[in-house]
């Protein structure tokens, strides 16, 4: 082993230069990241749009985050910008439901949200990874207050209908036992010399020590009922004071059920880069981000415009729309360039004058179906009865999860849970129900985890994204085949038209995708406009 103290320590710059020479720029980037310089995101700061010809007209279709960000940055650069929006509100999928809000969906179903003042549900995006630096940058620039979002809660539940008697178990108990049993097996294999052919004696000792320490095994390598295991999974009778203060250790869950239940996938879930701590949410509802953007560009937005055609030629772009605020009167807007953020399921059905490859790309990316349930209860029983403060319980039932609010913890009065969050088959199924049936199914399934549902339920809302007239789905669903064949065409400026939105990114279904895609789109547009591309 080299004694590092024999040499003068290299400066950080010297070190980086050496790494850069030896490992190339990829190595340099990696080293910089580990030394705290680069960030884990593609965000490179506000775009450089210098040299714009003042007054060049840009029409932006859609006032979600991608559209509003494009408007904000392009106006700052000197462009003459306007946004036209289909809905009677700006913000797009950045949306929050509160008491009094009305949800209209395809098929004519209407829900009026009955939540108490201060309560809300985010039917769309609801959490922000710390490395989504583009979105976080603009939140700070626009003064949007953020607070931690509790993703992982050791005291939440994991529920398998077929294991542990169909009863929910605490995440803490399950995770401790899963880790304990797994480490025990590996420690045992080492002790019984079953791994001698793959590890040297030294390494066997290191791994054995790691297993015992990492999982909290007994000194002999066993995961068994006792004080040590209970210091992870909790005691049958908790540590106390006075004469009865001595704790009683808790029983372990059976190993075969731990493994067979498959609930480990929810441990793995929180380890995904997208779900790692620290996550954030806006204080008071996700739409406070939208409101922050709206404050910057509200004077540029015209609501209630139903786009029917997007045409272009050598001189400019012409967008036709029905002015829904004036009896559907047909109007046109002309501009030099167009940033189109219309969701692809809608855009694919409009008269859009673009090249064949872009047209094909627009039709190649369907949107996933997703359903969220917002359930209000008379009191925060999950906090008061069960000491669950934020986080998520997972279940193998169709509702898939119950998430507890990260805001307003310890407050009195009614509280709102995310009573179900579905993608895939369960989302198709729930979307096909009436709103009342969705809420009813959410209550029935939730009862398996929280019997208090019966007594405490007050009102609920079931939000099905595929029934939203303005998106016809939740967010882009890229197949491997479509990505290979169509992505480049989708994000390449087509004469005077460029697409933006989460669908035009590799960060699909996240707001960060909308931000990064919008910045890429307006950078392309700017280069085209100043004649550099």
């Amino acid at each position, binding site marked *: 082993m080299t004694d590092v103290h024999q040499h003068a320590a290299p400066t950080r710059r010297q070190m980086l230069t050496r790494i850069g020479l030896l490992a190339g720029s990829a190595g340099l980037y990696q080293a910089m990241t580990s030394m705290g310089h680069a960030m884990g995101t593609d965000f490179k700061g506000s775009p450089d749009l210098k040299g714009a010809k003042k007054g060049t007209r840009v029409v932006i279709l859609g006032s979600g985050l991608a559209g509003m960000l494009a408007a904000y940055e392009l106006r700052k650069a000197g462009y003459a910008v306007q946004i036209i929006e289909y809905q009677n509100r700006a913000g797009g999928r950045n949306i929050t439901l509160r008491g009094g809000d009305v949800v209209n969906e395809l098929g004519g179903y209407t829900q009026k949200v009955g939540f108490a003042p201060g309560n809300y549900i985010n039917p769309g995006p609801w959490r922000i990874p710390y490395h989504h630096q583009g979105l976080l940058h603009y939140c700070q620039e626009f003064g949007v207050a953020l607070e931690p979002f509790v993703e992982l809660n050791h005291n939440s539940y994991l529920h398998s209908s077929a294991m542990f008697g169909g009863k929910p178990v605490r995440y803490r108990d399950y995770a401790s036992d899963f880790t304990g049993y797994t480490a025990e097996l590996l420690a045992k294999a080492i002790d019984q010399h079953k791994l001698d052919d793959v590890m040297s004696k030294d390494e066997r000792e290191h791994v054995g020590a790691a297993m015992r320490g990492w999982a909290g095994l007994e000194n002999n390598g066993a995961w068994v009922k006792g004080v040590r295991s209970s210091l992870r999974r909790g005691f049958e009778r908790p540590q106390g004071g006075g004469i009865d203060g001595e704790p009683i250790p808790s029983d372990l869950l059976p190993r075969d059920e731990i493994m067979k239940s498959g609930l480990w996938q929810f441990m793995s879930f929180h380890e995904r880069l997208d779900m790692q701590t620290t996550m954030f949410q806006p204080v008071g509802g996700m739409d406070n981000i939208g409101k922050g953007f709206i404050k910057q560009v509200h004077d540029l937005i015209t609501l209630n415009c139903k786009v029917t055609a997007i045409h272009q030629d050598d001189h400019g772009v012409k967008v036709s729309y029905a002015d829904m605020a004036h009896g559907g009167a047909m109007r046109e807007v002309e501009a030099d360039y167009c940033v189109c953020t219309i969701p692809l399921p809608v855009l694919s059905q409009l008269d859009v004058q673009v090249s064949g490859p872009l047209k094909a790309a627009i039709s190649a990316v369907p949107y996933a179906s997703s359903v969220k349930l917002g359930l209000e209860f008379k009191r925060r029983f999950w906090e008061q009865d069960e000491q669950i403060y934020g986080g998520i319980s997972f279940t193998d039932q169709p509702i898939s999860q119950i998430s507890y609010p990260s805001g307003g913890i310890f407050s009195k009065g009614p509280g709102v849970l995310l009573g179900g969050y579905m993608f895939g088959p369960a989302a198709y199924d729930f979307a096909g129900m009436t709103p009342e049936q969705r809420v009813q199914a959410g209550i029935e399934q939730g009862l398996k985890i929280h019997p208090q549902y019966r007594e405490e339920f007050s009102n609920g809302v079931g939000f099905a994204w595929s029934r939203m007239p*303005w998106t016809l789905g939740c967010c882009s669903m890229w197949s491997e*085949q479509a990505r290979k064949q169509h992505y480049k065409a989708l994000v390449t400026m087509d004469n005077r038209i460029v697409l933006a939105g989460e669908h035009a990114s590799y960060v699909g279904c996240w707001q960060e995708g909308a931000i990064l895609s919008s910045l890429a789109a307006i950078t392309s547009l700017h280069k085209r406009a100043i004649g550099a591309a």
Partner: protein
Amino acid sequence: MRSYLLAALAVAATAVPVLTAGQAHADSASSVVGRVQPLNTGAAVYEHVCQGCHMPGGKGAAGASSGFPAFAGDGRLQSAGYPVYMVLNGRAGMPWFAGMLSDKQIADVVNYIRTSFGNHFDGTVKPEDVAKMRQPVQMEEQ
């Protein structure tokens, strides 16, 4: 996302709910399939998969664009190959179901749509017909 498609296949094949490991789709957090409906008939597939968009009774619905097509009297259903292709591969707002539905389920639902809602199109699709039309469509890993 990909994983729930696989899990749905497992359910279809064995009729035993199987919980599989999950890669969630972006912000889905939904790496679990749960107990999916058995979907043993065309009517069941329609109710639990299709009607979320195409509406009860195959009525369809229009939104910011023409929206989701209605099935009653839809001339494009004349050739059974068209709906089979659409269900397998998707197009525009229609997702692909190649990974989620079996050959039999797709044949069942196509036959159901072509003979319901006032439709009386000739010919019956068999699972073998669906099998022949399959081409690879995989959700990309997220």
